């Protein structure tokens, strides 16, 4: 008997409006409310609402046998409240069934785990509190933004009290090992790891409606057949998807809803396998081995690394400049400014600056409002310049020079410029953060 672990990610960023340099210093509305509302309502209608209804129906029909896990970013939750409250209600209904687990993650879908352990911790706590408040659950398992994981990040997560984490079953980490077992962190064996089975997951996420795919059309029988055909001793099948796969990336017309329904029914009726949430998998299985992950991995692209967000010079400059403001933002204790700084950490902003599509035609993970990575970068930097001025003012009470914008040397970026190498910043930022602490003392 294998465990089938269905996990869905729900996230929507606050997309930036077109913010010109001449707005710097006097206009402080950064976000495209219209687009954010429109896109949220659209995805709610096409995906979240019908998919939630389907899951609820299946839970009612199959009782406790159907289990599913979610993680919902704080920015998505905020947008539910602002633009689509009925979505939030439907998730709350799901929560009440007791068959649904909500995972912890960062509040604003940030990559802070690579840069600032302090900010990371702050956001994880903020998110957990919000989940508790809305769904009455204290999250027990953790998923990081974009499934980014490394040994160092594992340690951070463990220190925050989590004993289970999910990440990508990246080939270069697993090697000959199968993702269909429970693992643990080699540097901290108490932290258990669920590895995404990207083959099975991407069959749904990317290939489901691809008519040139040799397995098209994918039926529930076929999919369950593949699981049945796995080695006898394999224990878990981790199908981790973005929730928009159901209904938006794969339209209703592709049959994705019917597939999900039929798949669930078949698994439960055959009773050869059982659905389990992330924490249930972690509690019921023993880790078979420790995994070393010295360089951060993610679930993006072929490389499963960070290059979709921090691959080029633009992304690195923007990311560095963003976190150079951290101490000031912290010190000025203006909650409005802090919330905006938080929203600017959204990984999507950096994804929009990616130049990877030049070579491999990568797919953006959310609707990209920009024509080019350069537009995205300039726009983001304009916003950051304005926020920097506001933070400076709030800190000192006087008009500062927007230094971040004009400074030529970028020593901080040096660490990141080693091309093609995954970026390992956690350790160095740890010391930086420690220094900051000392200063504060």
């Amino acid at each position: 008997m294998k465990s089938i672990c269905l996990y869905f990610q729900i996230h929507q960023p606050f997309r930036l409006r077109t913010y010109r340099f001449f707005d710097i210093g006097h206009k402080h509305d950064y976000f495209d409310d219209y687009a954010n509302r429109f896109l949220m309502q659209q995805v709610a209608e096409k995906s979240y609402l019908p998919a939630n209804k389907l899951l609820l129906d299946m839970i009612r029909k199959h009782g406790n046998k159907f289990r599913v896990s979610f993680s919902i970013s704080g920015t998505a939750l905020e947008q539910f409240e602002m633009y689509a409250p009925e979505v939030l209600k439907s998730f709350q209904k799901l929560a009440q069934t007791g068959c649904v687990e909500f995972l912890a993650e960062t509040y604003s879908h940030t990559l802070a785990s690579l840069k600032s352990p302090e900010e990371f911790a702050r956001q994880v706590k903020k998110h957990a509190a919000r989940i508790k408040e809305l769904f009455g659950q204290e999250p027990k398992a953790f998923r990081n933004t974009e499934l980014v994981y490394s040994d160092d990040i594992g340690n951070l997560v463990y220190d925050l009290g989590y004993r289970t984490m999910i990440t990508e079953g990246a080939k270069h980490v697993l090697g000959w090992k199968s993702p269909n077992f429970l693992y643990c962190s080699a540097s901290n064996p108490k932290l258990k790891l669920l590895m995404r089975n990207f083959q099975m997951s991407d069959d749904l996420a990317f290939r489901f409606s691809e008519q040139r795919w040799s397995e098209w059309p994918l039926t529930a029988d076929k999919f369950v057949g593949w699981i049945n055909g796995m080695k006898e001793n394999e224990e878990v099948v981790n199908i981790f998807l973005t929730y928009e796969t159901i209904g938006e990336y794969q339209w209703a017309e592709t049959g994705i809803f019917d597939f999900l329904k039929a798949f669930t029914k078949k698994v439960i009726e055959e009773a050869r396998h059982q659905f389990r949430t992330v924490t249930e998998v972690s509690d019921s299985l023993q880790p078979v081995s420790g995994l070393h992950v010295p360089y951060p991995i993610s679930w993006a692209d072929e490389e499963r690394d960070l290059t979709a967000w921090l691959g080029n010079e633009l992304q690195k400059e923007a990311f560095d400049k963003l976190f150079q403001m951290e101490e000031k933002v912290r010190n000025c204790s203006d909650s409005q400014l802090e919330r905006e700084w938080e929203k600017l950490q959204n990984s999507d902003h950096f994804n929009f600056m990616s130049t990877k599509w030049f070579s491999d035609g990568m797919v953006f993970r959310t609707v990209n409002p920009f024509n080019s990575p350069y537009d995205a970068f300039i726009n983001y930097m304009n916003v950051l310049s304005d926020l920097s001025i506001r933070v400076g003012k709030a800190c000192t009470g006087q008009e500062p020079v927007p230094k971040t914008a004009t400074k030529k040397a970028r020593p901080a970026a040096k660490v990141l410029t080693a091309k093609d190498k995954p970026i390992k910043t956690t350790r160095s930022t740890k010391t930086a953060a420690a220094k900051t602490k000392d200063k504060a003392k």
Partner: protein
Amino acid sequence: MKALMFGWEFPPHISGGLGTACYGLTKALMKHDVEIIFVVPKAYGDEETESIRLVNASDVVIDIKDELFREMISKLSYLEIDSTLIPYADDEEYFRITEQLSKGVKAEQLSIKTHKYSFKGGYGKNLMEEVKRYALVGAEVARQQEFDIIHSHDWLTYMAGAEAKRISGKPLVVHMHATEFDRSGESVNQLVYDIEKAGMEAADIVVAVSNLTRNVVINRYGIPPEKVITVHNGVEPANTNRFVDDQKKVDEKIVTFLGRITFQKGPEYFIEAAYKVLKRDPNVRFVMAGSGDLLPKMIRRVASLGIADKFHFTGFLKGDDVDKMFGMSDVYVMPSVSEPFGISPLEAMRSNVPVIISKQSGVAEVLKYAIKIDFWDIDAMADAIYGLLHYNSLPEMFKEYGKEEVESIKWDQAGKKVKDIYESLLS
């Protein structure tokens, strides 16, 4: 395979992008084993002079002592037709040139600046007569020579190409380097338009230098889409002798416009964007290099905006001065309203200058390391200028990869594509 090509200029005598393009394409085709008979009107009478180094408008230096060039010339049948046909010359220009020529001025000392012509005056009529005479010559050449295919470059040679096709029955390819809409905006010269249309209708295949031009050919001339194929231009490898650095003598950053100051090039949008940037950041200087009919109007606009202390006009720049200008520049802007291809941003990139180009240019279709804006969107243009001047990783990225990108846009690929077109017509 042998092609009969009608051009109007060929190195060493090139006045514009067309000559450069013909040179690059011919060279590439010969590399792909296509023999070429190149027919040009002979306007200058000094082609025997060998040791000329001639700098063309887009500043590609072609040394005719260069071995490759010599080797090419040796394989190339080069026919010169006695004619005073001069491309891109308007009344005044045409008059000035013919007069100077008649006084014995050497051709390479002439500069032909404008791309406009009109047929209002008597000289324009001469130009039209030349076009017709060239067509007759085309027929004659077709009678005498052996070849498999005919290839005509731009409208002046279309009649010649069509005549050659009529006589020989061989397939005709016409090459659209620029359309009348690019040259004249909406006030097209009907005669020229008619010749272009008739030439393309007579042709078996129309080659367009960009998808932008292809769309114009289809939508404005009514040519069936299946007959029109885009072949992007290539770029000649950089001349290594050029030096471009250390030219800057002012502290401020410099943003440059370089080109003819005509409607087609969109100079007024550059000025409006400059005004927006200067309002926020006074530490920038703007330069408009070039001359043209809109120059006086542009100077007045700059004065009325009160930015003349930061906005400079250089007049027409040639040769080394162009290199120097690029050497001083931090950003190059090409806000063209309509640009079939547009080689100058490539020149800028080769000199390590980040570029902003209009989406209404053919070159935008082949460049990745450039910011693309709509020519009319002065907010976006200003924002891109500001971004390149203030957020360092962007210009650094453009410098690092731009040069490489330009060097990858090779004539060889264009030559291969044109040869494929020939083969499809002959099979």
